[in-house]
């Protein structure tokens, strides 16, 4: 997977998270760019189901051999699901960040218009 892989159908944050909105539920993960920068992921801390999050909250962390990065809530709402597979297979967050490595799902309580589209995010990482 290339570090500059930016799927068209997702929206993004400048903090290298992706958001997929399906009706009123948003799925959140880290981007391929972030995964590449981190290196092999060894541990993921996630919010708890039922937590209420607001934009910018630190809701978890992704730890690699090299470093630890915080996960910020990209949208507001109630956490309705977390990816339990990451407990035993944290590496999925880095090896399949857009698929099996998703992090958590939020029932939206607020908008998503602040998120970047694929073109804007691609431009953002090109400048980084």
């Amino acid at each position, binding site marked *: 997977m290339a570090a500059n892989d930016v799927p068209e159908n997702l929206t993004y944050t400048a903090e*290298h998270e992706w958001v997929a909105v399906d009706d009123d539920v948003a799925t959140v993960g880290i981007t391929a760019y*972030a995964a590449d920068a981190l290196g092999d992921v060894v541990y993921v801390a996630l919010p708890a189901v039922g937590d209420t999050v607001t934009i910018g909250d630190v809701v978890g962390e992704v730890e690699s051999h*090299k470093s630890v990065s*915080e996960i910020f809530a990209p949208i507001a709402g109630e956490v309705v699901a977390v990816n339990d597979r990451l407990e035993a297979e944290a590496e999925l967050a880095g090896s399949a960040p857009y698929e099996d490595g998703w992090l958590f799902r939020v029932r939206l309580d607020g908008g998503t218009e602040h998120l970047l589209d694929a073109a804007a995010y691609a431009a953002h990482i090109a400048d980084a």
Partner: protein
Amino acid sequence: MSPDQSADQPDLHRTPLHDAHVALGATMVGFAGWSMPVKYTSDVAEHTAVRTAVGLFDISHMAQITVTGPDAAAFLDHALAGRISTLAPLQSRYTMILADSGGIIDDLIVTNTHLPADAGTPPSDAATDQAAGAAEPAPPTEFLVVANAANREPVLAALQERLLARSGADESAPGDTGAVTITDTHRALVAVQGPHAVAVLHDLAAAGDLVVNPGHAVAPDGTEITLDTLRYYRTVPATFRDAPVTLSRTGYTGEDGFELSIAPLQAGDLWEALLAVGQAHGIVPAGLAARDTLRLEAGMPLYGHELTLDTLPVQAGLGRVVATAKDDFVGKAGVEAGPAADAPVLVGLALPGRRAGRADYRVLDGEGTDVGVVTSGVLSPTLGHPIAMAYVRPDLSAPGTVLAVDVRGTAIPATVVELPFYRRSKES
């Protein structure tokens, strides 16, 4: 997420292998003023390749300083912590350069690179010389000092300052500065590390690209040095396609391996040739991330983490590196005064689970009292659990002592263990 990608700073130095790293798809980062590959594919895969097969590292960012001249050995005995004058030709030693306080300016590997044209001379000649009343054989006159990239300038400055001070102070030998020359060579350095490293170099020799010991130098026991008989911390001259190479059996991974110093112009060809012949042995290019996890498992300190200007060698468990019996060397008084009785000492810590205690995280005792600080920590790829090096209160440094590391608000139990964490089996 805030991934740190800082390799695009325009003022970073580039090694002679920079383009090769980019062509291999490396993730480049800024490190000690250099643009360096942190990983090519996966840092864990690169780590594992070095433990089980062989890895190739570009470490050209390290400073390779030559100290030459008739007075070089005596000068280094004064300027460095170890006794350099006792190094046999083609022998290396791990040592340090200390401040007056005894604190560590850098850790170094010093090699007596004096070409042993006369080391191969039958001993009877020396005996004849002495019988004829000639002076003792000229002492070795060339040393290679390898320093950390981040410390290139401080080490050069300290050496030059000590050379000037020494020549001024020593009235009996006012011309000493003329007898020692300090040169920053800017040569390239690559490391071939892992159980298959010797096989890779054999294949490079079989291909006719590498000639080990073209001058037929002999070891102290009188036998000619070969790739197979070259011992750990020994060096031998070699050539790569006629370019001079200083070939040393040294490394920073805890595995068998070699470091090859070569002129920058030939470094790219050497790198390509090693990757090509190494393919049959599972060679992978390996980046700084793997280098860090490998050295940490091997219990090797890293300057800026375990070693600092505020650390005395004995606190880092490296008191043996200092030749305190020497009459005089910079830092002697500080080392002899020693650290305070309650000064922290370096220990290894083993943690359960997956979350590593990292540099600057606090170490706690059973009551949650702050008793120290982690200097390096990682989830060990080889051992499968987190390991760390930390400075802790000396009364809590005995192996088996149970402490804890504050991992971002969670106290994770940590047991003091002997260093190194990993020791290779010598049978392989």
